[in-house]
């Protein structure tokens, strides 16, 4: 939330004042030239790191790419002994657990953001916003610990039997209640991504110009109607961006999911069944990979994960920026 204010001030200063530092060549002594080189080198390091990361992943995945080609993406056999590798169970587990997480996290996260930005009394906002930040600061492994020892038993003894009885006719809620499995992973992921969705959505809502609200209020709309008609409609693309940022987090999340999803490379329709995700198979098997091809197959899964998360994040940033950009245009 500080960052939106920070951004606004920064651009305002940039608009009204000439460039901070004069370009006059005579002023460039040796110290300045060296210093600029140093700064440029620091900036270039980021570039080199990202390029290096991409290259290393592609090079590492090459043996598997050569050996399996496109079949890697459509086979569901994962047999390290026979060296047959297919990514389907992991891709499926990652997508299903992330979608489940979003299903839970989006209404809660956006609702909380609306409350914090629009409807809450003034004194409630700072402490609650701070607590939401703390939810985001809890390390992944702690969520996993809680998932193993609190959430899973709770699901096994209470939630899953109840769901099986009432909604058991759906294939989603069939099978023995293990506790650990897709449902537990989805819930833990939801808890972990919801603070991101809340924080970014809130920033988006706060970036909506007040003239929008005032216009609606002046027409006699209630606070909620103002929010629904003027604010949410204005910030819609930014909120979709916030949700995608949450999705990016969920896709790449490793430890907590590894600890509660059950780690079985199968494609099962039931949410009660154990599953596996792309990130967890890397976490579990990377140090055990005995052959080069096995290691390479794991790196290819990492490459796949990298491509998907980067695409989701890039789209999310564009959407969030689009609201920020529109806001700037209105202010100017």
């Amino acid at each position, binding site marked *: 939330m500080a960052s939106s204010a920070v951004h606004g001030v920064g651009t305002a200063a940039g608009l009204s004042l000439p460039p901070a530092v004069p370009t006059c060549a005579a002023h460039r002594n040796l*110290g300045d030239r060296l210093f600029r080189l140093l700064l440029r080198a*620091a900036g270039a390091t980021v570039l080199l790191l*990202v390029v290096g990361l991409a290259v*290393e992943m592609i090079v590492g995945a090459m043996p598997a790419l050569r050996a399996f080609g496109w079949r890697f993406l459509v086979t569901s056999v994962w047999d390290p002994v026979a060296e047959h590798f297919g990514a389907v169970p992991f891709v499926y587990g990652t997508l299903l657990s992330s979608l489940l997480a979003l299903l839970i996290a989006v209404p809660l996260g956006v*609702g*909380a953001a609306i409350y914090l930005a629009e409807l809450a009394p003034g004194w409630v906002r700072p402490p609650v916003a701070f607590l939401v930040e*703390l939810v985001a600061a809890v390390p992944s492994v702690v969520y996993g610990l809680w998932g193993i020892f609190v959430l899973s038993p709770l699901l096994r003894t209470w939630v899953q039997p109840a769901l099986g009885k009432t909604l058991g006719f759906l294939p989603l809620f069939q099978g023995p209640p293990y506790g650990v499995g897709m449902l537990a992973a989805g819930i833990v992921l939801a808890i972990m991504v919801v603070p991101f969705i*809340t924080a970014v959505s809130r920033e988006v809502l706060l970036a909506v110009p007040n003239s929008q609200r005032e216009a609606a209020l002046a027409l006699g709309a209630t606070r909620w109607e103002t929010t629904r008609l003027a604010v949410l409609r204005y910030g819609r693309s930014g909120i979709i961006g916030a949700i995608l940022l949450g999705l990016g987090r969920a896709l790449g999340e490793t430890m907590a999911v590894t600890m509660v999803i059950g780690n079985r490379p199968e494609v099962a329709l039931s949410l009660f069944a154990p599953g596996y995700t792309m990130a967890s198979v890397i976490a579990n098997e990377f140090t055990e990979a005995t052959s080069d091809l096995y290691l390479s197959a794991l790196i290819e899964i990492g490459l796949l994960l990298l491509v998907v998360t980067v695409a989701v994040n890039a789209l999310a940033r564009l959407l969030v920026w689009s609201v920020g950009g529109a806001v700037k245009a209105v202010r100017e």
Partner: protein
Amino acid sequence: MKPAGRRVVNVIMAWLTALAAGAVILPLLMIFGFLLFQGASAVNVDFFTHLPKPVGEDGGGMANAIVGSLVLVGMAAGIGLPIGILGGVYLAESRDRRLPWVVRFLADVLNGVPSIVVGIFAYTLVVLPMRRFSAFAGAVALAVIMLPIVVRTSEEIVRLVPSSLREAALALGIPEWKVVLRVVLPTARAGIITGVMVAVARVAGETAPLLFTAFGNRFWHQRLDQPIAALPLQIFAYAIAPYDDWHRQAWAGALVLIGMVFVVSLAARLATRGRFSGVR
């Protein structure tokens, strides 16, 4: 709809969204309560001063893991902070045409890369050439995760420093590099410290990138080119083990870890509150 009905809807939505906000922070309270309930009894002096005991023996601690985490985060900060802060200054001050735009975009990309993938990167970059897991490899992984956070927050803070300060200093004939080091950075100090602490809090709890870089160690590390213990790694190992006394240790470790992370997060917030308002 009649006015009364609309007002009712308004009140209902206010309550529903308040409930949503409550549901978002409820897990925090539950987890913290459980940590205190399960872990507090195992947090004692031994926990901070002793090595882990073998299965079946009572007592023991995670001293090596706590020190290991501090070493890892310290080394990561040593690598990541100078590059990150200078990179942030570059983005804020440079008049290069294309490179800043590219670097800014790539920093955001790097921020979204899953930490386990960063782990693979550090593995191929450091572990494979050195032919062993090491504290150094773990620190490199953590530094890569810190870097984009520090770059972007430093940039935003440096942009906040009023141009009049720079102009005043430049008008006195002070060279640009001295202006940045002696005027711009000190003015932005509080904000930069906040960004640094956010980054430290984030990597202190990272587990995934350490699995196959720092690797973990049940004993004290002797040298930095050897495997090293880390608090999150130890918690993970103990949590998935089948022994009850290890589970208790895992809860205690989680309590200590979360305490460390929260203290750093709070400090980051207080640092902002103190001097940051003056910069604006």
